[in-house]
């Protein structure tokens, strides 16, 4: 069997390096596309050989790296990481197709950075050692910083620095938590190890409840700021909206915060000093983010900022579902990550296409675009409907699971979140109506529809939204076993 986990990091990285040396736009985009296609091939190979009926780690590899500190290069794939790898592998080739025709400076660096980003993100998903995990985690910052800072909108400098420093601080706090985990386990067992699963298991044997809470919160902070959630979200609207379209999509695919939540924080949660308090906190943050994000999205004038805030709202479901802490609510939260990645890619591509065609993203300056851009309107409509949670599309599956199965444990927070559903439907339909329908705004002049590559790439993702909405089991099955494994630990402890 192929060492898929390592290859999934190496292949995009090698293509990235080669892409940096290309000369023309077509060469750069072509090589980038080829690299992402190769990654997609590898991912499909992994997916076909993946056993959904177990929560065990598959494609496991481990090599000693720094024996003195107990650091190993160990990677593997399980039901938590597989869907997210799949998401990245599927969207990135189409994202490259989408931006192929756009004119920009230094396309070789642009596509090279995209592939570097893909390698780093997949690296986070497959890493099973805290040091490897942290290295890839930090590595995801660098390409995104450059992508926003070089090719972003007007306020790109501000946005890129804010994002960089904000999430860097959060990662450093997380690093402190990792150190705490490492030393506490070293004192406990006398064995130096950075193995994620080993340390997470050791966590329950630590004596001091205060220390456990400190470690848990420090690590959680890193994840929540990356996710992001209220109140650590202030970098999000700037970064998402100032990034070029491909950059916004990369932000959307950067599901490492939620991934960390499932991989590290949730298994630790039942063993913290005060699990009930932690669950309440998560539930509060989740449901508040849902409502708060929706309210902010409602009053945005800029289409891209609106989508950015709706993203904040959607991420709330990930936290709420985690706080629900039963197998299906956690699966719903995981599925929300997958679904959100697909849906938001379509939305950001739509917003990007509108800006390229009309020169503005201000909703009130648009109007009646459906007449001039029929193709765009159709795919965009699918994205918007999925985003507001229309049954039959992926967004509904995720939100349904989260709300239904969280209700038993946290009814209050679910009721709060239900409020937001109305608002969510409201801002989506209202924006759609103002921007795409109604009387055509003649000031926009003669607007062209999106090109065929763009239609194709957006349509494929939109179809996947529909497909996984009707038939979520290929992805959902992988998640359920792992969610059960996470939650069963809690059942044993009687939480």
């Amino acid at each position: 069997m192929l060492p898929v986990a390592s290859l999934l990091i190496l292949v995009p990285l090698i293509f990235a390096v080669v892409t940096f040396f290309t000369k023309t736009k077509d060469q750069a985009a072509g090589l980038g596309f080829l690299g992402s296609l190769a990654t997609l091939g590898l991912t499909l190979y992994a997916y076909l050989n993946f056993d959904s009926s177990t929560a065990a780690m598959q494609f496991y590899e481990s090599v000693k790296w720094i024996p003195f500190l107990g650091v190993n290069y160990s990677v593997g794939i399980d039901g938590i990481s597989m869907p997210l790898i799949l998401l990245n592998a599927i969207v990135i080739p189409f994202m490259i197709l989408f931006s192929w025709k756009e004119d920009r400076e230094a396309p070789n660096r642009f596509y090279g950075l995209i592939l570097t980003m893909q390698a780093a993100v997949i690296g986070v998903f497959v890493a099973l050692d805290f040091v490897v995990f942290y290295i890839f985690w930090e590595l995801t910052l660098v390409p995104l910083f450059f992508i926003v800072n070089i090719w972003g909108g007007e306020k790109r400098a501000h946005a890129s620095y804010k994002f960089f420093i904000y999430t860097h601080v959060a990662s450093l706090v997380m690093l402190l938590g990792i150190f705490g985990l490492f030393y506490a386990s070293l004192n406990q067992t006398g064995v130096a190890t950075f193995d994620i699963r080993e340390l997470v298991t050791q966590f329950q044997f630590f004596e001091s409840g205060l220390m456990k809470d400190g470690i848990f919160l420090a690590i959680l902070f890193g994840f929540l700021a990356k996710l992001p959630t209220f109140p650590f979200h202030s970098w999000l609207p700037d970064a998402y909206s100032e990034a070029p379209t491909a950059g916004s999509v990369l932000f959307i695919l950067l599901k490492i915060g939620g991934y960390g939540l499932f991989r590290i924080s949730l298994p630790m949660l039942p063993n913290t000093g005060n699990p009930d308090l932690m669950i309440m906190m998560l539930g509060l943050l989740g449901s508040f983010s849902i409502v708060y994000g929706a309210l902010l999205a409602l009053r945005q004038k800029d289409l891209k900022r609106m989508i950015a805030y709706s993203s904040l709202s959607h991420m709330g479901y990930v936290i709420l579902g985690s706080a629900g802490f039963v197998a299906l609510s956690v699966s719903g939260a995981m599925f929300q990550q997958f679904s959100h990645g697909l849906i938001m890619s379509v939305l950001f591509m739509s917003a990007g296409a509108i800006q390229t065609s009309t020169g503005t993203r201000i909703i009130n300056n648009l109007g009646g675009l459906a007449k001039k851009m029929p193709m765009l309107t159709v795919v965009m409509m699918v994205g918007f409907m999925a985003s507001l949670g229309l049954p039959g599309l992926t967004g509904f599956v995720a939100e349904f699971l989260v709300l239904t199965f969280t209700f038993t444990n946290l009814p209050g927070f679910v009721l709060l979140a239900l409020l937001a559903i109305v608002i969510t439907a409201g801002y989506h339909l209202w924006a759609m109506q103002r921007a795409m329908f109604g009387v055509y705004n003649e000031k926009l002049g003669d607007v062209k529809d999106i090109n065929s590559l763009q239609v194709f790439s957006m349509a494929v993702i939109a179809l996947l939204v529909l497909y996984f909405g009707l038939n979520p089991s290929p992805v959902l099955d992988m998640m359920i076993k792992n969610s059960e494994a996470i939650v069963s630990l809690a059942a044993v402890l009687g939480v």
Partner: protein
Amino acid sequence: MDEIMYLAPEIVLVATGLVVLMAGVFLSPRSKNVLGYLATLGILAALVLTVRSFGLLTMGEFSVGYSIFSETLSIDALSQFFKLVFLTVALIVSIASIKYTENSDHTEEFYTLVLFATFGMMIVSSANDLIVLFCAFELASLATYALAGYEKQNARSLEGAMKYFVIGSVSGALMLFGISFVYGATGTTSIPTIAANSALLTQNPIGLVAVVLLIAGFGFKMALVPFHMWAPDTYQGSPSVVSALLAAGSKKMGFVAAFRIFIVALAALQPDWQFAFTILAVVTMTFGNVVAVAQTSVKRMLAYSSLAQAGYIAMAFAVMTPVALTGGIMYALAHAFMKAGAFIAAAAVVWMVASERTGNLDIPDHLDSFRGLGKRMPLAALSMTIFVFALAGIPPTAGFMAKFVLFSSTIQAGMTWLAVIAILNSALSLFYYARLVKYMYFLPPEGKKVSIPFPYAAALLVAVAGVLAMGLWPEPFVELAMKAAMVLV
């Protein structure tokens, strides 16, 4: 006769220095370039000898130490590790200087001073006696005073050298004063004997006075706030290759001397100096990072960032666990690669500005000179990027690994507050490092593409190799640093 063989690296170095000095008299100005290669070879030979001696010393589980010359010098893992640091810096500096001294009339003096300064630093790292330590300290200092003022026509170089010399002399006097108090209380200058008779120091308030004076004296070399006043002017004004030697090499001399004096000799007074170093570390790193943000001269920015880095290393004194010392010692090596490399990259830019005679000639290392460097000198820009990201502690670089070990030790020791301050500082530093990267890659170039001179390129590659090797394969470095730390605990 056997004893002297332990000093083989130093002997090779001094011999090379003397040969360079004599050869310079007989060579025609044109062929003086050969001196640079000669000095580089000498340093390389010394480096190989040190690595070999290291292998002999650390065989087996525990490190072995030798005391030679009536116990005035000790050859152990700590001394050899720091000799490695100094020789690496000297190597990088001397390679780059081949270009810098190309058209100079004083090539032989330059290299001799570099070699003698390195020799002084190496003896300091071995010194087991306060008088030997002081003499070697002064040897290295005098040589670097002269080097800092090497550009006689350049007012900034002279100003920097003058400040460095005056403050350096005063702090040398303070240090000697402190040593005399230690001698007065214990009646000896031998470090092990002082450590054995620590009661004499703890019972006598003179011990505390000595600690204060010694911290002031060494704080100057380590460039800890508030003894740092000279550093920004000197690092900015000196030729960049000399700044590299000062920031990456000479500063570490202060640290290794402080390791030996405080941790070994004055171990009994640990509560006093540990408290002082904790405050100095926090103030230094914070001050350095905050002020660095406002700098427009890159060398000055590097000077302040160097203060901040000294603050991190000083955390080793504040935490004082084996892991912290390992981290501090590792950081010394990592910092040598990163900072020497960064100053050499600045040297290449200064050379570019000077050779084109356009741009900001008054401050050739101004941020504006770095505009579009990614297009003008790709190698210099790429290596500078690697160095500044390493200084900021981004993986997978030497800076990350060193910070990883050092910061983790504070958690182990239960000093979470110190870790938080250090980490906030780290994040703050990212701001000015990222700004430099932005200038190099995002802003349009204001000139043509320039091919980088070979010596600068070679020196940069050596430093980049070091930074990446420590980041990707840290095991041997951690192990060596740990053995060096074992000497102290």
